[in-house]
């Protein structure tokens, strides 16, 4: 049985990865009220973008210190390209269509992206190993942090700070806030809403790419179907934090990650639930958490509006 602090740190790490991906859901939703189901696949393509840079572009044996920033850039380029392409060619023509239409498009897109990687990426039919950072695990007190998690530990707060600065301080960021509040009025005030929507998709993809690299480093392998469950979890995190709220996404992610980790570790100690405790049930508990949140606090922890904008 692991100690509680260790479990909390594990949950925090897992949760900040969920949070990074959840930002993409929440930003797009906040601006166009669309659940971009394909976001999980954007995350997945980012991971493969990073792998491509390491395996096929950089010379063998490049130090991870040099390789990691380049991999990050590769992941971002691929993710952003996919996300912006999806926005331009699949979602934009459907703006104003009945609500069901973009949802079905998103499902189709998600399926197509997943299968495209499966079919055409070299040896992607089974999991591919992801490069690892050398060096042993770090011990702080009685908490152990794996080397792969160091990246996440640094990247998640830094990205959040940058995002906060961008949204609050820059012109485009304020344009995003304006578009989220009222797209028509924003347009009248001279905000190019089409551009803002593209920026929202692109930014979401950037954070998904960071999350994808973190995921690869954490688990040591990436797979064509990795985006599906992670996308679901990230969406849960976004709902948990209050969809449409970027800080909510991060907080929701952390809460979800901690809850999942603790559930896997301690539920078995509850009398009568002794068989529901292992890691295999973690996904189920995350899902039950989603249902409970929707039942009792559908506006999420930070309470962004969920009302229909007519």
């Amino acid at each position, binding site marked *: 049985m692991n100690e509680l602090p260790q479990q909390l740190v594990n949950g925090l790490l897992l949760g900040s990865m969920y949070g990074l991906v959840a930002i993409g859901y929440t930003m797009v939703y906040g601006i166009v009220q669309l659940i971009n189901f394909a976001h999980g696949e954007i995350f997945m393509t980012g991971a493969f973008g990073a792998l491509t840079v390491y395996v096929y572009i950089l010379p063998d044996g490049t130090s991870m210190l040099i390789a990691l920033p380049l991999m990050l850039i590769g992941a971002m380029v691929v993710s952003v390209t996919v996300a912006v392409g999806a926005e331009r060619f699949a979602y934009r023509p459907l703006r104003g269509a009945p609500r069901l239409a973009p949802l079905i498009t998103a499902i189709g897109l998600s399926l197509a992206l997943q*299968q495209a990687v499966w079919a055409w990426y070299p040896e992607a039919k089974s999991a591919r190993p992801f490069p690892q950072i050398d060096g042993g695990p770090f011990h702080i007190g009685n908490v152990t942090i794996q080397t792969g998690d160091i990246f996440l530990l640094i990247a998640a707060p830094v990205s959040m700070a940058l995002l906060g600065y961008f949204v609050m301080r820059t012109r485009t960021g304020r344009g995003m806030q304006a578009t989220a509040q009222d797209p028509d009025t924003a347009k009248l005030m001279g905000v190019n809403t089409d551009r803002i929507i593209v920026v929202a998709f692109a930014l979401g993809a950037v954070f998904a790419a960071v999350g994808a690299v973190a995921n690869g480093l954490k688990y040591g392998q990436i797979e064509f179907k990795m985006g599906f469950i992670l996308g679901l979890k990230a969406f849960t995190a976004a709902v948990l934090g209050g969809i449409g709220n970027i800080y909510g996404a991060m907080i929701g992610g952390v809460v979800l990650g901690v809850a999942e980790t603790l559930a896997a570790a301690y539920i078995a100690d509850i009398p009568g639930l002794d068989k529901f405790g292992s890691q295999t049930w973690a996904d189920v508990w995350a899902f039950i958490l989603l*249902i409970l949140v929707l039942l009792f606090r559908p506006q999420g922890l930070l309470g962004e509006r969920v009302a229909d904008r007519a």
Partner: protein
Amino acid sequence: MTTQTTAPKTAGTPAGDASGLIGIPPHIGRALATGGGVLTVVSTFLAWTWTAEFPGDLTVYGYPGGLQVLVLIAGALTAVLGLASYGIKGLRWLVPAGADGALKFAALAAFVTTWYTIIAISTQLGGIVNLEPGGYIAAATTLIALLGSLALPFERPEPDPFDPDDTGWERFKHTTSQNWQTVKAAFAAGTPRPLRALPSYVEILIIVAVLAVALVVFTYGIGTEYDELFVGFLITAGFGFAALNRSGLIGQVTQLTARHQNITVCGAFIAAACFPFTQSDDQYATLGVYILIFATVALGLNIVVGLAGLLDLGYVAFLGVGAYAAALVSGSPSSPFDVHFPFWAAVLVGAVASLVFGVLIGAPTLRLRGDYLAIVTLGFGEIFRITANNLDGTSGPDLTNGSNGVSSIPDLKVLGFDLGIQHDIAGFTIGRFANYFFLMLIITAVVVLVFRRSGDSRIGRAWVAIREDETAALAMGINGFRVKLIAFAVGATLAGLAGTVQAHVTYTVTPEQYLFAGTTPPNSAFLLAAVVLGGMGTIAGPLIGAALLFLIPNKLQFLGDYQLLAFGLALVLLMRFRPEGLIPNRRRQLEFHEEAEAPAVLSKTGA
């Protein structure tokens, strides 16, 4: 958006010049098309290739085989439509909406099927030297017929003037869309003549004939033995259907069936029930029963997605709940319960179990926006699979036997009739799968009944109202949550019902049968694709969509690894270009194409 509103076209005056797409004089074009059609028919009686290596044996003079039969049909259609376009007395009934648009599609059907065959022969056998004169003749005659038909005059759309401020790219887009409009107009149909009143027994006879033709077409499709023939079948059937649609015949049949709805539905079921009798062995009855399961579940999903507008992405999990429930009480040795319920009780258990899960999932989510339902059902589909995998006794309580599933589910005995063994009825041998086909047909009938009756009821109208504008519907006093929950629960129950039969048909239920996206239907992605492809909110749509989506991967082995990719792209493209599906629900069509004119009367559910 640079589109400008054009001035409304004044009726009666043809806009622009009335020439064809190709600069051949129209009367010559018509003669070429008709003559080409006749010669195409003749060419199918010649040998197209010298060796029987190409499947279907196209080497015989005087006897068309394989793909030649399809070309023969398409050629005959071209010839008949060509003759009808001359206004010959006895053929006028064929073309109530004018023959020209239909003729183009018929010629296209013959042309594409023939050239596909020719190219397939050349590539498979290595070079065009393998063609016999018959092949060349067929290629030439179909080309002549196509060119001739394209020369037929049509009403060109009014050109939309350029915006002088347009950039080069906008200009290019503008021209492209203009050209596309012209091509569309070339293939468009005229206004159909009103349907003449016929004695009702004649109308019913016509419906029976149409259903018989549909049965023959379906049986032919399911029995195609090699890839090329199935591709040819799809080409001929697709373009042939388009041709008949343009000729106005389909529209008239639709009017007839709308007049005799109950007879049509009963007739369709009788036609479907005839299917096992057309088969000599159980091989294609197997396909039949799987298609029927898939189609029934798709139809159930259509209540949820098509009528109520709720996107359920984990629908297959409800099928799984029903299947597992039935399997656990079936007396299977791997079930922890040592019980063997009779069929009616098992059906009840399966349906109720699905209902309970439907309400459990629906109640928290349906109060919120529809998007939440989509993601929660997606999650539920995945969770169901994980849970079924875990309940194996080691990582959880022992219930479902984990990834091995509940196996050796015994065959059903209904009223002393053992569905597991062969029966001889009136000289026909009815095998195991044919037995289940009949049982499944009853379930399908139940689902169709629920769909029609609920769709036309107070609740059904409330569903449509909610789907089209929830805020307005709520303002009109509809209890949105209650009505949506009913739709969701009904959908779940029907899936559970189908699941109980599915468990017995497949002998084994495993978690891997109920994926979100897998290579074998039914799974949630395929189901959604079937509903969207066929047409949301209709009965015939999902049935046809499911049949196509089952047969295409089953028949076209080369598609194999790419089918899911193709389906994903197909969903995206369908939503972009034809969101109403193959068989549009009229109200739905209006919703998706706001610019279209509203017809005077809408049928009740539009189905």
